[in-house]
């Protein structure tokens, strides 16, 4: 029972960051119909920027997280303006190839800039776990969960309550009619890609100090982001949140009770099962925000 609670806590922490990753990716797909292969690299970019700010420039840890996220937003906006904007009328295959190319460039740029050796990001939290009854959890992980939850909530409030959010959802649903209402669809696309990238960078900035930072860290995470999105149903924001937590729990429980070595594999096994039994994902299209 104690072990179960412990896994539940760990799964929630992991799931929160997975939800951030998934929401960023599904948002980009939903609004722009772009399969974003750079997503995992934006995650790695967020982690490396945190490392750079904290370890090289001596910036305060919390400020470094915010700056790394903003750097992710800026890189996302640049990718959209330089690559995607001119490919708006291109077919989906060409866009996919360009995004795969961009992800290779980003990954190798990281390798070139930082070298192949994994880095540690120092953090201000105590190394000894907080013991709450039967459960013990590292303070850093609690912090990660808190920030993920705050970002998810903030993002949802932005979409649900602000004029920009309503315009974004309208564009999601019908770009041509949104244009007739006066929405600058081009700017919505840029903002979408920038926000989605920022969420990926935020996830990387948050998990970077938990794990290690290495140039290939984006590979597995990029795959997992796709898994989360497919799990929840492509283009579904509630689905991506659900998918993120589902993947977090499955990895944590399967890793804990079945096999630690294969914990990543169980997540993908789940995807195969969902695709075989409910190919439209966990949240059917009708309930999508788009």
């Amino acid at each position, binding site marked *: 029972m104690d072990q179960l609670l412990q896994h539940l806590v760990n799964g929630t922490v992991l799931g929160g960051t997975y939800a951030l990753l998934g929401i960023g990716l599904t948002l980009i797909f939903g609004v722009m119909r772009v399969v974003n292969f750079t997503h995992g690299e934006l995650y790695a970019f967020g982690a490396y920027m945190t490392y750079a700010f904290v370890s090289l420039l001596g910036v305060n840890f919390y400020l470094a997280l915010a700056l790394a996220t903003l750097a992710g937003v800026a890189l996302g906006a640049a990718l959209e303006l330089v690559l995607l904007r001119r490919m708006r009328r291109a077919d989906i295959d060409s866009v996919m190839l360009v995004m795969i190319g961009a992800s290779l460039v980003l990954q190798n740029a990281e390798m070139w800039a930082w070298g192949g050796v994994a880095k540690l990001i120092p953090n201000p939290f105590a190394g000894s776990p907080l013991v709450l009854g039967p459960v013990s959890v590292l303070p850093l992980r609690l912090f990660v969960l808190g920030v993920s939850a705050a970002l998810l909530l903030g993002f949802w409030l932005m979409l649900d309550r602000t004029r920009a959010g*309503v315009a974004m959802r*309208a564009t999601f649903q*019908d770009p*041509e*009619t949104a*244009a*007739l*209402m*006066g929405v600058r669809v081009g700017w919505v696309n840029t903002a979408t890609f920038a926000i989605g990238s920022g969420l990926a960078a935020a996830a990387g900035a948050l998990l970077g100090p938990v794990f290690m930072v290495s140039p290939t860290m984006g590979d597995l995470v990029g795959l997992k982001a796709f898994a989360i999105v497919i799990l929840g149903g492509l283009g579904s924001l509630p689905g991506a949140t659900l998918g993120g937590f589902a993947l977090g729990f499955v990895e944590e429980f399967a890793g804990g009770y079945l096999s630690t070595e294969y914990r990543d594999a169980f997540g993908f096994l789940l995807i195969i099962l969902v695709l075989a039994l409910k190919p439209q994902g966990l949240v059917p299209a009708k309930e999508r925000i788009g």
Partner: protein
Amino acid sequence: MLRLEGVAAGYGRTLALADVSLDVRQGELVSLIGANGAGKSTTLKTISGLLKPSAGRITWDGAEIGGLSPREILARGIAHCPEGRRVFPHLTVRENLEMGALLRRDRAAVATDLDAMCDRFPRLRERLAQAAGTLSGGEQQMLAIARALMSRPRLVMFDEPSLGLAPSLVEQVFQIVREIRANGTTVLMVEQNAMAALRLCDRAFLLETGHVVQAGTGAELLASPDVRAAYLGGA
């Protein structure tokens, strides 16, 4: 107030409009009629900026507006209520109406207008918090009309407002169009239902394969043997 001179436009390499010249005067109700594929919807899309004219001039109050973005056209007072209603299905009725007023900065007046729309269309008030996709076809058409009016346009363009509606609702929609004009908003309407459109309008233009082939008052076109033969089911 609106004038098209020799306008051509199309999708990619297909030219849907070859040579369209027409004008709409302040306070008028003008109909565009013609067969499927004649270029009626394309004409409206070119005026509202969804398509760029490849030739010709579009002027509004004497100033060239051809090639401006839909946002700039809307800001100049031309609203476009597209074919097939096109409400945002997962936004609430209220959010749909607010989208119509996206460019307006006078928030208080927008709230007043929203209230007035609900007075005019009581079904919308009952469903303000409901997703627009759950509305019936007729209710969605009312919402699309109200949404277009929320920008307080000087000219509103309706594309097939009666399409797919039950006969009783069709009559209601035409009554609304009449009221909108009576309230001082100029109307340019595309209609398949040529008989109804010609009876309703002041003037009309007949489109055939991207050309304007006849123009005149509604009564003149109703009396025209060509129009009768082609669109009104024979003389």
